[in-house]
């Protein structure tokens, strides 16, 4: 049907127009975003000299990597227990994964600010790690849990019947089959951290800001196309991370026949 395609096209135009305009303005010579368009890479050159944005970008990447490593470890362990063990209170524990995802970040962020201030944990990189990991863990549990569901438990049982201890069976059978999901979860956790603004906004210290926080304060001070340049890089970065994730998380269940 023609109508459906036209409508979907319109939705895509709506979704991508501002993003493409933002990207284009990063290549427009005018510092005031004035049209007509004149191609220039000036703002990318300026960006290379903008210590604030570069440091913030570097911070964001480091924070994303740390978050991915920690959250993937914690989340994978929890996913194993939640999906492979049966115990009382399991559904309650699964429910407790929802608040970090479902409660508006404004509430979580301000609560963290109060608690970290009150306990002396304070703000800065360590506070950001604590916050970002907590926001990413539920997603890791979800992604790894979905992967685990495609791996039949009788594979581990078969290994045990052949002489493997549960620990060996896990490392020899489940872990290799689960690896794509774990990698996908790590990429996802990285993306969650990279894109996080609200919680970072409350937990950043003057000496340690992430890229979105730096962009926000730059926007509030007044626009400059350098922000478009760095935003373009950020968008392309997280889009590629998510596209790679989508490849790993594709429902090509390991263990099932083609």
């Amino acid at each position, binding site marked *: 049907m023609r109508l459906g*395609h036209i409508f*979907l096209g319109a939705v895509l135009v709506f*979704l991508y*127009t501002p993003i493409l305009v933002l990207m284009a303005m990063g290549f427009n010579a005018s510092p005031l975003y004035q049209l007509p368009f004149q191609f220039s890479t000036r703002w990318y050159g300026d960006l290379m000299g903008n210590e604030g944005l570069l440091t913030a970008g570097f911070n964001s990447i480091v924070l994303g990597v740390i978050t991915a490593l920690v959250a993937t*470890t914690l989340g994978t362990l929890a996913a194993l227990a939640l999906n492979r*063990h049966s115990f009382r209170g399991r559904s309650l524990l699964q429910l407790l994964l929802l608040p970090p995802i479902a409660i508006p970040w404004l509430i979580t962020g*301000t609560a963290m600010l109060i608690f970290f201030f009150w306990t002396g944990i304070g703000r800065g990189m360590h506070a950001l790690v604590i916050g970002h990991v907590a926001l990413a863990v539920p997603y890791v549990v979800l992604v790894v849990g979905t992967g685990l569901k495609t791996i039949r438990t009788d594979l581990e049982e078969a290994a045990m019947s052949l*002489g493997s201890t549960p620990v060996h069976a896990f490392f020899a059978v489940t872990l290799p089959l689960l690896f794509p999901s774990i990698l996908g979860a790590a990429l996802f956790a990285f993306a969650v951290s990279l894109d996080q603004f609200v919680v970072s906004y409350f937990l950043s210290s003057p000496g340690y800001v992430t890229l979105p926080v730096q962009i926000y304060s730059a926007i509030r001070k007044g626009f400059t196309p350098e922000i478009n340049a760095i935003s373009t890089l950020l968008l392309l970065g997280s889009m590629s991370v998510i596209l790679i994730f989508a490849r790993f998380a594709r429902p090509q269940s390991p263990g099932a026949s083609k």
Partner: protein
Amino acid sequence: MPNEASPLPGPQSPGTGLHDLRGPHSPRKIPGWAATTALLLPAYAWLTLAVFLPLATMFVFSFLNKTPMGQAPVEFTLRHYRAFIDQGYLVRIAWNTLVMGFWTTLICAVLGFFAALALVRCTAGRQRETLLVLILLPFWTNGLVRVFSWTMVLRENGFLDSLWHLVGDGSISFLYSRPAIVLGLVHGYLPYMILTCYIALITIDDAVIEAAQSLGARWGTVLTRILIPLAAPGLISGAVLTFVPVIGSFMEPRILGGKVGMTLGTVIEDQFTQAFNWPLGASLSFTLLAVVLAIFATFSGVLKRGAAA
């Protein structure tokens, strides 16, 4: 007693069957509860430290008479929960926030439902997959940057105006207005609504629609009597997961609303970053949380079914 007819030596005699089991681990079982605890503890301890204790602390803070700084003694008070009575403008802001949430959700639901319907009915295979990825991709990019990008479009002499200048004069810019906020929020949450509706619609068997048509149902009847009721779980969970973050938003109203962009979210942010009245901020945050939890509780059945799908 090896069986001579067998190409494999027969099974080992009783009692010696295990002598060659040289696993690296002692053949002992770890108690189940210990393993479960060891696996769960790190993640849940972390969540407790980073989310649950902070929420509890915020609850306590919301009863303090002032931000506990320095030596001055603090007292407990219910004053901040009376803020809606004492400071009338808060009621207006809360109402505006709810109205903003309502419009965003409604527009997302209408656009999202029909986009999902178009995906399910008019596309297939690789085309559908590509379209889905394209629709969802922006959802997982930085929300702040996407909101910022709308300022490029909506500002005076921005992209929208330059399109307008092809046909008319003047400016149709509406940056720093409520519709601009709603537009930015719709942009943010539409992909999610499309996804939840898509998941609900894709499970509907074509035969159901054909059956309805064979019984003489027109397209409008099929839509209102079959598609919308069957897609309701997707619509509702999409609506809840749009409405909740929208009423807690502060960055979108700030950037796209400017001076008219006062919402509960921006008021809360102000208490923490400008006014430094943390107890008031905490009580407003907690009031918002209560609303959010009430919404989740109301729709928990639908949301659970959605999560299971």
